[in-house]
């Protein structure tokens, strides 16, 4: 249970960091930016960020959040690291969703004399919301299942108490699985516990993903345009 809670805290933290950043970046890329060097650079940057190995994120989290900013091994450091990790996923998904909003919606709003910003806020964003939501849920699924980034930044194998503040270490399911499977003294005897933990993790992650997929197919059918 502490491990499940820890995973939840980390995931929620990650999404609060990544969602606003990702959506705003996606809005800029689809609505404002003209094709040019800056946009090209941002796109390449996002792609490369998406390709950075998770263990490198972990080391970066260790070097930057834990050591340089002196957060220590904590929920905060882990959540920020995971947030950066899922940022590209969310930017990509939000961009797709924003592109899916028909151009006529924008034109209609602009023709009524509405400013560009209000058009985005009142017309484009609400229409793109289901897509953005799906993307974020997939991002959450990814964050919940990642192990390597939190190994150095947040996770403790065993803490008896639940975390009291965002500067405490937490237990996290994926890391728990790893430690149980590799480092126990009675590996054979604890197999049932290991399978149980894996099952909980898989159920959690696949459940999250499944929700996203169902929302998406439902929204596709309901689309008004």
């Amino acid at each position, binding site marked *: 249970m502490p491990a499940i809670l820890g995973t939840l805290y980390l995931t929620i933290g990650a999404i609060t960091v990544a969602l606003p950043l990702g959506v*705003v970046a996606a809005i800029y890329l689809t609505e404002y930016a003209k094709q040019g060097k800056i946009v090209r650079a941002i796109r390449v940057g996002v792609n490369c960020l998406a390709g950075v*190995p998770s263990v490198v994120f972990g080391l970066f989290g260790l070097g930057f959040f834990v050591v340089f900013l002196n957060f220590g091994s904590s929920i905060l450091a882990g959540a920020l690291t995971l947030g950066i990790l899922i*940022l590209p996923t969310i930017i990509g998904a939000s961009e797709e969703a924003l592109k899916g909003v028909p151009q006529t919606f924008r034109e209609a709003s602009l023709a009524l004399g509405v*400013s560009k910003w209000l058009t985005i806020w009142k017309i484009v964003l609400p229409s793109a919301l289901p897509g953005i939501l799906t993307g974020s849920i997939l991002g959450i699924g990814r964050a919940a299942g990642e192990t390597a980034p939190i190994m150095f930044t947040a996770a403790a194998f065993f803490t008896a108490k639940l975390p009291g503040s965002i500067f405490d270490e937490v237990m996290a399911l994926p890391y728990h699985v790893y430690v149980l*499977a590799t480092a126990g003294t009675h590996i054979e005897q604890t197999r049932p516990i290991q399978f149980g933990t894996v099952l909980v993790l898989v159920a959690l992650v696949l459940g999250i993903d499944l929700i996203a997929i169902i929302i998406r197919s439902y929204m596709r059918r309901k689309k008004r345009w």
Partner: protein
Amino acid sequence: MTRHQKEIIIKNVFLIFSLISIFILGLIVVFLFREGIPLFKEVSLRDFIFGMEWYPTYSPPSYGIWPLIVGSLIVTVFSSLIAVPLGVLSAVYISEIAPPAIKEVLKAIIELLAGLPSVVLGFFGMVIVAPWLQATFDLPTGLNIVNASVILAIMAVPTISSISEDALYAVPNEFKEASYALGATKFETIARIIIPSALSGISTAVILGMARAIGETMVVLMVAGGAAALPESIFDSVRPMPASIAAEMGEAPFRSGHYHALFATAIVLFLMTLAFNLIADYISQKFKEVGSATL
């Protein structure tokens, strides 16, 4: 403040937020180098990369990551050998052959496969595949190159398949229709028309899949076996770079040579995946405008 000024301010605020991802990428580079560079006061770059011995805890320690690089490359190549045919063929099936109902189900399954946490796959490889390999081939250990490659391939298939599918989907319908009109069979159309037209997208998919495999940590940490030596057969254990970093970081004393060496290893890994990504980006950019109008 006029409306126009306000719009400009909003636009620039958005721009700044978009630049954050580049900024983070920069930060990653800066911090990797900040923690990794001090190693080269002790070891030369050449000894580090081509050194054959990785004994970071001995005294004097030796930091040669060549066996780790080889380990990474081997499991990546083998897993691509498995994942590329699987991924590309399933993409062809999904986008060209499958009836709509099967298509939806398959796409959902592949997406779920992509969402499976790597530690779970690693666990699967350790507990199920490893004992089976050991018993079937009568090996000292089931944690070896074959096992790691198979599991990594399972991870890379969804990446390869979904990006290839996008590429196949983007092939203009006129191409297929022209081919059919000339009397070509479905198979000929797929093999001679559709796949060649989608080739740039498919190669992007393959490269990104390989980048995923080379950077994947938990799987290789749990199933590759962890022997830091050059392997002699595909049933030997290896210790790819991510595994080494993840396994040893917890034990390496803060800011010691070992700690710096692990960061330096991460730089090598980072540069390799960065290269993969830039190549993929270049290919997809260069061959982007192959629509019906340009051919």
